[in-house]
Structure formats: structure tokens, C-alpha cells
């Protein structure tokens, strides 16, 4: 369980990036942190594995305060995949890249071998095991970065802007992948601008604005609230826009799921869903 208690943080003395953030993420939860650029999203999640320590307030990971331990120790519980895979890839082959963290954590060679095998198969990288990560496409590099973190099986996974630069198919794969991890009981936190992606996943949404939490609740509730979204420069997801414009009696407005939308519309039209 992750607990953030009234955290303030400033990079330099003048500007405060976080102005009193409190948040609890339970085990197995799926949370999307949204908000415009400079709202403090990445700054907040960098506190989750101790990369940043609060100027005041506390962050507790499974009851341990992040100031009392090291990033390396926290990283075993909290896996963090950075936005740009080029900021971490450095090995000669994909399998060495995946082995890097495992070696840092002191896993035995036979365990490392098994984990690499598991990781490349999970993310469809088996044919690239001996390839240099620098030769791969952007989407593939992103998957290598993801595999290199998943390999040590952290309990909690943070993904910073996972959908940037991914095509529709890759996004869909990522979504299913996240759902699969969630069903295995992992805690997942994503930082994103991608409102359609969040609508499809329908996680808990934490909306940040100017270093504070502006809204926190179910995706369905927050992503259909035009007032709250407008203040954070986020547009409604397309489905919610349709229902907002239809504005028909008997039709709700808080719809973001495409299947739910289909059922509702067919029912309204008097056609039996098939």
C-alpha cells in the first residue's frame, strides 16, 4: 500500500511543484494520474520510489518511509518505467538490458535466465533477444524498457506516459497487458494525457492541477465531468461527448465505455442487442 501524506516538494527554493498532496493507493488498484503539463504528475510519481524525497510531508511504501531507505531498495517493490526508453537503454543486446536490473538486485544466474525468457515472451521480443536495443523501432524499444522492469516482478508498477508514440494496435496491446497485470493483483499507476486510453481502461482517476489534486474518483465519474476537465485542459472522451451532446431523456451522461454505450443506444432505439 502506498500512502502520500501532505507532501510538498520544490525543485529550487522559489517554485513549489507539489503543494500538499495526500493520496492512498491500495494494493491491486489501477490509478491514472492525469493533468496538464507542469501539473506535477511526474514529480508526484517520482516520490513513489524515492527518486524524489518530499520537502515536507511523508511518503510510505508498505509502511516504510521513503526517506529512511534507498531508491534501490524501494525499486524492488516499485517498478518505474520512464517515458522515454532511450533514457535507459544502454546494453549490447535486449537480454543484457533485461538482465541489468536483475544483476543489480543480486539474482542468481539461472533465475536471471528464466526471467529473461519470461520477459521476452511476455512482450513479444523473443526474436530480438540477441539484437541491440538501438536497432529496434520506437515501440519495440518501449517494450524492452517495460520488460526490463517487469523482469523482477515488482508489486507495484508505475508507467510514465506509456502511450506516447504508440500506434493504436500497440495501445490496445498495452491496455490488455495492464488488465492482465491487474488481474494478477499488481498495483498499477499510469501518468498520462491520453484521455481515450484512460476511458478504455476505466481506472481510478486522480486529476492534478498546479501541484494539487483537483479531483480523485472513478474514471467514469471524473471523465464525464466537463467542468472539472475543462479546468485541467482535458477534453471529454469521445463517447462521453456523444452522450453529452445527445442530451436525450432516459440516456445518462456518465458513459465512457463503448460497450455500455452500445447497449444503452440499442435499448433506446428499441433494437435487441445481438
Amino acid at each position: 500500500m502506498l500512502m502520500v501524506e501532505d507532501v510538498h516538494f520544490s525543485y529550487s527554493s522559489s517554485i513549489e511543484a507539489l503543494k500538499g498532496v495526500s493520496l492512498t493507493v491500495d494494493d491491486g488498484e489501477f490509478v491514472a494520474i492525469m493533468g496538464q503539463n507542469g501539473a506535477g504528475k511526474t514529480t508526484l510519481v517520482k516520490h513513489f520510489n524515492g527518486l524524489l524525497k518530499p520537502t515536507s510531508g511523508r511518503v510510505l511504501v508498505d509502511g516504510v518511509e521513503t526517506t529512511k531507505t534507498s531508491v534501490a531498495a524501494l525499486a524492488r517493490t516499485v517498478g518505474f518505467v520512464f517515458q522515454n526508453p532511450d533514457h535507459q537503454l544502454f546494453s549490447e543486446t535486449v537480454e543484457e538490458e533485461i538482465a541489468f536490473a536483475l544483476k543489480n538486485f543480486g539474482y542468481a544466474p539461472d533465475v536471471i535466465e528464466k526471467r529473461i525468457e519470461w520477459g521476452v515472451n511476455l512482450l513479444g521480443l523473443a526474436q530480438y533477444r540477441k539484437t541491440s536495443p538501438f536497432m529496434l523501432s520506437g515501440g519495440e524499444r518501449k517494450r524492452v524498457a517495460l520488460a526490463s522492469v517487469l523482469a523482477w516482478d515488482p508489486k507495484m508498477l508505475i508507467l510514465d506516459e506509456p502511450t506516447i508514440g504508440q500506434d493504436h494496435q500497440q495501445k490496445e496491446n498495452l491496455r490488455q497487458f495492464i488488465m492482465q497485470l491487474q488481474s494478477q493483483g499488481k498495483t498499477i499507476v499510469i501518468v498520462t494525457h491520453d484521455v481515450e486510453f484512460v476511458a478504455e481502461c476505466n481506472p481510478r482517476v486522480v486529476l492534478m492541477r498546479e501541484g494539487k489534486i483537483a479531483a480523485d474518483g472513478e474514471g467514469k465519474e471524473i471523465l464525464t465531468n466537463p467542468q472539472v476537465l475543462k479546468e485541467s485542459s482535458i477534453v471529454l472522451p469521445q463517447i462521453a461527448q456523444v452522450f453529452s451532446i445527445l442530451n436525450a431523456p432516459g440516456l445518462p451522461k456518465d458513459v465512457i465505455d463503448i460497450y455500455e454505450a452500445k447497449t444503452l443506444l440499442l435499448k433506446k432505439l428499441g433494437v435487441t442487442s445481438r
Partner: protein
Amino acid sequence: MSRGLGGSVFDGLKFRKVSSPIHNLDPRMKFVYVIAVFVAAILFSAIIPLAILFVMALPFVLLARVQKQWLRSLRGAAFLALFIFVINVGGSYFTHGFTLLAADWENAAAMTMRFVVLVESFSVFFLTTSPDHLGLALEQSHVPYEFSFAFTTAVRFVPVLAEEAQTIMDAQKARGLELEKGNFMKRIRNYVPVLIPLIVSAIRRSLELAEAMESRAWGATKKRTNLYELKLRKGDYALLAIIIVILALTVYAFLYVHVPTVRSFFGYA
């Protein structure tokens, strides 16, 4: 927690655009001033004239209102200054038959002061001169535009690279990299996972920059004109006068004045 490179060391290199009598001076004249101080600091090896040189920079710092950054750059040089002091004292101790005279202490202090004066004058120059101004000065000193452009670009990319290095370090720390772990050789090796992505990304960035420059027809005109031109103004002539006085006094004192030592005031030999 230290923000590493991004937060401290390179902060002094980040130029903030402000207007002050010192910032508005012609960078060429400021550079001549730095050279003059440099020459004076090399000619004197006694502590009193070096201390005077040190104090002389203070009005510039105060006029430019860069005290904070200036102090920070001095603090950055403190370790090296201490090192120079210890080496000098140690050197005298071993060469003078394992005794230390008052002169040895004073000499070590003077060498340290000389270093501080050099650091101080350069830091005032860089703190009060924008990279654009510097590039303009190079160009108007007939340095080929290719070189002055390369120079200003390099200066401008330092903070960008520093920030990128910080992100890369964070990303690798999140994968269990511990930079401060192991013996000396291991610690150097620890930086490989940081340096490779940094170099790759710098190369990638430079290729992108080259493409962007070409798409904006860089180098299409052989004879460039500038929107801004450097011209010597009243302040610059005042600085020129100060420079001449410094140089004249330095040469005069060097040739004809016996510079007193601090220890002579206290009756030491």
C-alpha cells in the same frame, strides 16, 4: 536529497536574462577586463595585492546583483582552493626540512588567493554575459560564424544535457543502479549505464539540430547581418579607463614598489 547535476553544479552556468550596468557592458570589454585581472594576478605573488584584486571585483558583483550565484560559484571552487592550500603548505613542509615558517603559510595563502581571484573574475564574466552576447562578440571579433555558432550552441546545450543526465540517472536508479557503491573502479563502471544513453541521445540530438538548421537554410547567405550590433558606450569607456589604471598600477608596482608582506607587520622575518 541532492538533485545531482541538474540542480547544483550547472546552476552557475544557467544564464538568467537581467539588465544591470554590468550586464549591459560590451562583452569584449568585459573580457579584456578579465584578461587584465588575470595578468595582474599572475604578476603578483604576494597576498596583499591579490587580496586587493579580490576586493576590486566586489563592486561589479554588487552592481550586477549576482551575489547569490557568485557565492555559489566560489563555494564550488572552495574544495579546489583548499586543495591548492594544502599542496602548497605540504610542499614547503617537505622541501624546507620539515619545518614551516610564517612565510610558507603566507605563500600558500597567496597561491590560494590567486586561484580564487581567477575563478572570481571568470565567474563574474560568465554570470553577466549572455550566450547570445558572447556569440555576437565572437562574430564581431571576426571569428568565423561556424565557430561562434558552434560555441554558443555548445554553451546553450549544457543545461539541457545536465537535465537529461539527471533523468537518465533516475531511470537507472529505478532499475537498482547504485552509483556510490563499490570500490573506485566499480564506481567508474557504474557510470556506463548513464553515459551511453547520454552520448547516444546527444548524437541523436545533434543530428536533429543539423536537420532543423538545414531546413531553415542555415548558411544560405554568405554575408550575414545581425539584428543587434555591439557598440562601445559610455560604460565601456569607463571600464576601459579602469582597465588601463589596473594595468598601469600593476606594472608600476611590479617594477618599482617593494610589496610588503603581511608577516612584516607582525615582526616576522
